[in-house]
C-alpha cells in the first residue's frame, strides 16, 4: 500500500522551503512598495481580494493555475532527468495547435471521439516538439537550452501564421481561429463559473507522474539519470533512452495543458494563448521542489498571483507584469536557499523543529 501520510511528512521540509521563498518574495515586494511610497497594506488587500475575494475570484485563480500544473509537471519530469527544458511554452502551443486543428477538421465523424482525438493529436505534437530538442542533445550533443528556446519562438510564429492564414476564422475579422464545436469543449464544474473539468485532469496528471517517478522502477531510473548520470551508467541504465523518454513525457504533458486551455477556456486559437506559462512553470516546478504533487499548490499560488495582478491593474493601475517580479524573485530566492552554505545554516535552525517530527525530512519525495 502507498503510505500517503509518510510521503507527505517526508516532503514537508522541502515544501516548507518552497513556501518560505514565496513568503520572502512577497515580503520583499512589500518592502519595495513601501519604500517607493505606496501603501503595502492596500496593495496586499487588493492582491488578496483579487485572488480569493469571492467564489468567482477563487474559480478564476484555479482556472489560471490549470495550464501551470501541466507545464509545471513538464518542467519537473525533464529537470528530474537532468534536461534543462526551457521549452514547455512551445510544447504547450504545439499541443493547442494540433488539438484545435483536429477539432476544426472533424467533419461529421463520431462526436464522442472528438475530444480523445484532440488529446492524442496534442500529445503527438507536444512529444514531437520535445523530441526535436532531445534528439539534437542525444545525437549531436548540443545542449537543449538553446534549442528549446528556439523551438518556443518557432511555435509562437507558427501559431501567429495559422491564425492570420490557414486557420483564421471564416469571418476574417480577427487573427484567431473559429471556435471549436461544442463536442470539443470540456464541461464546466460549477454552473456560472469558468472552472472546468481540466482541473480534474490536472490533478490526475500530477498523481500519475508522482506514481511513475516514485513508485515505478522506470521513474527511479529516470531520476537516477538526472541525479547522477555516471552512477546511472555504471548501473547499466541507458541514459539516452531515459532522456528521450523524459522529454517525450514533458512534451506531452505541456501539450495537454495547451489543448485543455483551448478546450476548457478559450474555445479557439489566438496569438497570445500562452502569456509565458512555460516560463512561469519553471518557478512553479522549483517552488514545488521538482515534486509532482507539490506542483499542484505551487501552480495555484502562481495562478492566484496572476489573477491578483489583474485586480492590481484594474484597481491601482499597476502593470500586470508585476506578477513577473514576484515570480523571478521566487526563483532567485530558491536558488539562494539551495546554496550549500546558506542551506546548512537554515537546516541547523530548523533542526530543533525537525527533531520533533516522527519522520526525518528526506531529500526527495
Amino acid at each position: 500500500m502507498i503510505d500517503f501520510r509518510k510521503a507527505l511528512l517526508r516532503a514537508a521540509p522541502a515544501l516548507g522551503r518552497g513556501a518560505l521563498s514565496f513568503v520572502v518574495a512577497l515580503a520583499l515586494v512589500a518592502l519595495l512598495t513601501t519604500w517607493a511610497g505606496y501603501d503595502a497594506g492596500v496593495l496586499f488587500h487588493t492582491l488578496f481580494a483579487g485572488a480569493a475575494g469571492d467564489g468567482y475570484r477563487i474559480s478564476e485563480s484555479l482556472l489560471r493555475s490549470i495550464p501551470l500544473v501541466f507545464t509545471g509537471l513538464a518542467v519537473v519530469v525533464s529537470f528530474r532527468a537532468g534536461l534543462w527544458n526551457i521549452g514547455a511554452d512551445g510544447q504547450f502551443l504545439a499541443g493547442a495547435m494540433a488539438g484545435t486543428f483536429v477539432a476544426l477538421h472533424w467533419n461529421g465523424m463520431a462526436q464522442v471521439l472528438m475530444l480523445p482525438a484532440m488529446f492524442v493529436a496534442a500529445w503527438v505534437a507536444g512529444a514531437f516538439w520535445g523530441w526535436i530538442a532531445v534528439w539534437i542533445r542525444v545525437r549531436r550533443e548540443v545542449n537543449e537550452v538553446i534549442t528549446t528556446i528556439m523551438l518556443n519562438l518557432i511555435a509562437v510564429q507558427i501559431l501567429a501564421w495559422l491564425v492570420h492564414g490557414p486557420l483564421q476564422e471564416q469571418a476574417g475579422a480577427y487573427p484567431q481561429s473559429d471556435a471549436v464545436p461544442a463536442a470539443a469543449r470540456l464541461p464546466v464544474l460549477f454552473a456560472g463559473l469558468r472552472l472546468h473539468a481540466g482541473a480534474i485532469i490536472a490533478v490526475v496528471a500530477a498523481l500519475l507522474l508522482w506514481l511513475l517517478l516514485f513508485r515505478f522502477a522506470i521513474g527511479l531510473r529516470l531520476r537516477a539519470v538526472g541525479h547522477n548520470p555516471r552512477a546511472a551508467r555504471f548501473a547499466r541504465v541507458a541514459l539516452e533512452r531515459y532522456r528521450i523518454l523524459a522529454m517525450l513525457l514533458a512534451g506531452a504533458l505541456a501539450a495537454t495543458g495547451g489543448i485543455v486551455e483551448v478546450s476548457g477556456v478559450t474555445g479557439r486559437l489566438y496569438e497570445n494563448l500562452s502569456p509565458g506559462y512555460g516560463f512561469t512553470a519553471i518557478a512553479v516546478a522549483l517552488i514545488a521542489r521538482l515534486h509532482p504533487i507539490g506542483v499542484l499548490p505551487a501552480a495555484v499560488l502562481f495562478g492566484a498571483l496572476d489573477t491578483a495582478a489583474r485586480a492590481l491593474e484594474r484597481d491601482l493601475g499597476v502593470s500586470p507584469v508585476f506578477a513577473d517580479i514576484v515570480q523571478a524573485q521566487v526563483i532567485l530566492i530558491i536558488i539562494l536557499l539551495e546554496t550549500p552554505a546558506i542551506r546548512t545554516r537554515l537546516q541547523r535552525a530548523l533542526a530543533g523543529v525537525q527533531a520533533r517530527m516522527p519522520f526525518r525530512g528526506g531529500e526527495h519525495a
Partner: protein
Amino acid sequence: MPEFAVPLLAGAVTLATPLVFAAVGEIIMEKSGVLNIALEGTMLVAALAAAFVTYFTASPAAGLAAGVAAAVLFGLLFALFAVGIQADQIVTGTAMNIFALGLTGVLYRSLFGFSGTRLAVAGFQPWPLPFLKDIPVIGTVFFSQNVLVYAALVLTLLVAAALKRTRTGLYLQAAGENPQGAEVAGISVYRLRLLAIMTGSALCGLGGVFLVLVEGNTFVEGMTAGRGFIALAIVILARWQPVRALVVALVFGLASALQFQAQAIGIDVPYQLFLALPYVLTILFAMLVGRANVPAALAKPYIKE
C-alpha cells in the same frame, strides 16, 4: 545597383546593429564558460534606463551611459548567482529575463504613467564619416550611420582581436574550456568570468540603448521583442566568432529589411514564417553540425576545490 537597394542595405545595417552588440557580448561570456540567456532582460533594462535618463536630461550621451551602467548592474546581479554562489546559469538566466520584463514594465508605468501617448526621447543623429561617406554604396550603407553603428563595427573587431591576441583573452578562453586546468595555471576563473559577464552585459546593454536612441526614439514595454534570443541563435550560427557574428547579424538584418520592403510594396509573404527563420536555421544548424566549437565548460558552474 537598383535605386531601392541602398536604403534597403542601410536599413539592414540599422536592424543588425543591436543584434551585433548582444551577440558579441554573449560570445565574450560564453567563451569564459558562462551561458547567459538573459540577453533579452539585459537589453530591456538598458533600454529603460537610457530612455529615462535621455528624457530628463535631453542628452543621448547621458542616456547611453545610464543604459550601459544599468546593463552592468544587471550583469552583476547575474554574476552574483552564476559566479558568486555557483548557481545554475540557465535557471538564473530565466529568472533574470522574467525579472527584467516585470521590473521595466512596472517602472515604466510608475515613471511615465499609462496615458497611451508614446514617450518621445531625443536620439543620436546620423554622423557621416568624412571621406569614407563618399565611397559609392558602401559609404551610404555603412559610413553615413550614427556613432553607435560605428561603435558596433569597431568593438566587434576589438573583441575578436582581444580574444585571440591578448593574454586576458586567452585566459578567458581557458576559463571556458578547462577551468580546473586554468586555475592550476594560476588563473582566477571567478575573476575572469566576472569580468566577462560585466563586459558582455555592457555590450549587450549597448544593443538595448540602440533600440531606444536610434531605432525607436521611444520606450515600449517588451520592446526587445525577442532580439536577445536571436542573438543567442547568432552566437551558435557564428560558432563563437565575433566577426562571423557580425556577418550573420547583417544577413538577419537584411532578411528583416527585405520583409518590411515586401510588406510595404504589398507582396503577400507569410511574414511570421519569415520571423521564425533565424530560429529554424539554428535548429537545422544544430542538427547538422552538432557541437563544433562549443566552449567545453559552457554553462557548467565552476566550484573551486
